[in-house]
């Protein structure tokens, strides 16, 4: 059954089986592959998107519950916090392989939008759901603070 989802400000019609997680609707149905699959059980954060501004794991989120919600992905996230995060991420070469970084950036952007000057402890709490096997954690922590000073 076709449903209309509002993704990055655009209405997208998707025809996916009921219960299909948003992650796979984005990746397989809409070919928006910036949002990544990491664990499928909301443990790693690679699939983080914003639902009405809140960082949310899309791998366990049925897409059919999202009609009327504002869905934002790495391809579309914008605003002062996102701009500052991207700028600092690039200037400091924060990512390594980059695979988890869509989720990291979505989580960090949501954190900055909510808290304009996070402490180390705030950052650790907000970001601890996002695993990075390359271990860019120290770089991310430094970069969020740097972005906070600019946003």
């Amino acid at each position, binding site marked *: 059954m076709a449903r209309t989802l509002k993704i990055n400000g655009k209405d997208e019609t998707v025809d996916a089986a009921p219960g299909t997680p948003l992650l796979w609707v984005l*990746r397989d149905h809409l070919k928006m592959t910036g949002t990544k699959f990491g664990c499928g059980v909301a443990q790693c954060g690679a699939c983080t998107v914003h639902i009405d501004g809140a960082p949310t794991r899309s791998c366990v989120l049925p897409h059919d519950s999202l009609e009327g919600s504002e869905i934002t992905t790495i391809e579309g996230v914008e605003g002062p916090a996102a701009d500052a995060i991207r700028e600092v991420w690039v200037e400091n070469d924060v990512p390594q392989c980059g695979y*988890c970084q869509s989720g990291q950036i979505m989580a960090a952007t949501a954190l900055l939008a909510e808290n304009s000057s996070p402490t180390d402890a705030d950052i650790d709490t907000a970001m601890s759901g996002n695993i990075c096997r390359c271990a860019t954690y120290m770089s991310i922590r430094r970069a969020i603070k740097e972005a906070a000073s600019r946003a």
Partner: protein
Amino acid sequence: MFLRNMGIIPGKAQSGADEGSGASITNLSRRSFVAGSGLFVIGVTLAGCSSYVEPDVDANAFDLPDPGASPLTQVAGGDATPALWIAIEEDGTVKITCHRSEMGQQVWTSMAQIVADELEADWDKVQIVQAEGHERYGDQNTDGSRSVRYNFHRLRIAGAAMRSMLTEAAALFWEMNPAECSAAEGLVSNSQNSDTLSYGNLAELAARLEIPAEDEINLKEPDEWRFINKEIPSLTIPLITRGQGTFGIDVDRPGMVYAVVARPPQVFGRVGSVDDTAALEVPGMLQTVRLRDAKPPALFQPMGGVAVIARNTWAAIQGRNALDIEWIDGPNARYESVSFGEAMKRTARRPGTVRRERGNVQTGMADAAQRIEAEYYAPHLSQSPMEPPSATAQWTGDKLEVWACVQDPQTTRQTIADLLEIDKENITVNATWLGGAFGRKSKPDFAVEAALIAKEVGKPVKVTWTREDEVRHGFYHSASAQRLEAGLDEDGKCTSYLHRTVFPPIASTFSDGMATPTDGEMGLGATDVPFAMPNLRVESGDAKGHLRIGWLRSVSNIYHAFAVQSFAAEMAHAAGRDQKEYLLELIGKARTFDPGDEGATYPNYDASIEDYPIETGRLSNVVEKAADMARWGRNLPEGHGLGIAVHRSFLSYIATVIEAAVSPDGTLTIPGIWLAVDAGTVVNPRHARAQMEGGTIYGLSNALYGEITARNGAVVQDNFPSWRVMRMGEAPREFDVEIIQSNTRPAGIGEPATPPAAPALTNAIFNATGHRIRTLPIIGARGSRLSLPETETA
């Protein structure tokens, strides 16, 4: 002048550096100078901004160089023929072919830095073409921390040769002596006037000139380097921050269907019967395909099972859940990793096979004033890159094309050719970006699966491994048991040292029943031990493999450095000495040595011992440096301790100091880490520092939590809750890295930070608490704190 006679230079070149204004040299065929046959242009990046192009499937129409015409096919490291690596287009774009796989180590950037420096390219015009898997590039196995080491010289030669040809082309055009012309930042200028010619203008003409021989090429001096040893920004990261770039799991082909595979629980288990009735009722399901059973030895073959094909990944996963499969046990069904670990410890208590010997350990021990011994155990580990294995395959007639996140597209191509019994010439393998690898993706079993399934289905197929698949069906880091013994004299000085190591070798994956640790694995931290005591013996004991055993970032160095560097600290404690001072005494005076002189067969990471000797002075130097950085010996709060470890691996020397803080209830935190690395010439210090951080945390994550166990031959863990990894909050607040500046030959960067991490931490915990940890993991998947024996708590 032959240029004008050839009619390709219709007019006078423009003066000045205005790129594109030198349009007077026209009709330059783009293809005449294009290199690489890079079949898959996965990203085109300009520094400071980002753009993205779809895979350029026509790129194989590029002309390939005629190897017979190049005097540079056999330089150190391989073929340095410029056109194999560099293509300069009319608009000045410099396309550099990267034949190594990008997995976060920033190899796109480092390879480009090397070429572009000698080429004197304008960095803003550099783009990367990712090479397909092909012998013409030489070794493409992005493993062993050797991309820079293998390619540093030949890529400099390639860049310098092309710079020389561009300069000569300008000289011909200006009718000057080439010595009067010089190249910088994509332009050639001359000493007579202010004219310049851009590389884009000169490319076609330069392509017609003879390639200089190696002895005619002048490489730049290190103080002339523009990009090498500079913190050049990554070429991939601008794309990453917008969700662009193509990882293996992101590949899309027209008409593609999606597959997951239900694999036997144990290695060499088999499908007995399968009922897919319920599976086929799942919306979006298309079909199932029974895969052929795997047979020993494992090699890189898929493990068999049932492939589930659907219109999207989620439907395939649901379809797999609905399969009813009866599995038949294989020969490994009785494997219990815990009891096997006990058996390995017993083996380590018996005399083993001598792999290196100096002096006489028995008499040394007999004469000792004090003897100590210790046993260490480390479990199996999973590489678990954030991107699980994924591959896409498409057949067109008898031709196969594969896109996959593989560390070695050549091995992938050869393995598919062997297992599917097809001609390699009919196979194209494209390496995508790798979302981490850590050794897992040097095993192309998942790409073979895609090729097999696509053939059955008759459509392009993407095979995705779920996290459960990755954790349960991997190529695991060996579990190991080790025993060390030492004899100390009356002054506490070590006079006799015995190290016995027992682990199933990686060779067990390739040769059924192989149980003896290989020289290669013994040379990763056991037979190359740098200690100077008069009596020393290194032994191995056999252990059979029951899981697929494979490489994991720094491989056997992990457990060997854990045991040897822990034991060094145990000796220091027994002698009543400071860990760092005792470690320096064990290493002894600055010297070079060859383990081969004491009976070892020592591969030295495939490098000659003359080019890359083991230099104990460099070890001691990084020990002193890291200790200084950490302010070794400072007063610490109650419950804090500093620990140190040093290790040479992948030809690099790294010392790590860790501060551990242990609260009375056993809660462990890591306030700081200080690391000094001597890796010879470092191409990109910023990215090298990132690898030092990443390699250390990878080692700490494994040491703290990592444990793969098997019951009835099947891996118990399945996903991040039970296979635990380190998270943001556990990462240290302070992490300082110092790179020893050096112009000596480049060594490894991606792996060597991992080995010293675990022993530096356990040595720090000992200094914080008095509790010695000899069994990993330190905390485990379910733990939250150290279990400190009451009597040992400081």
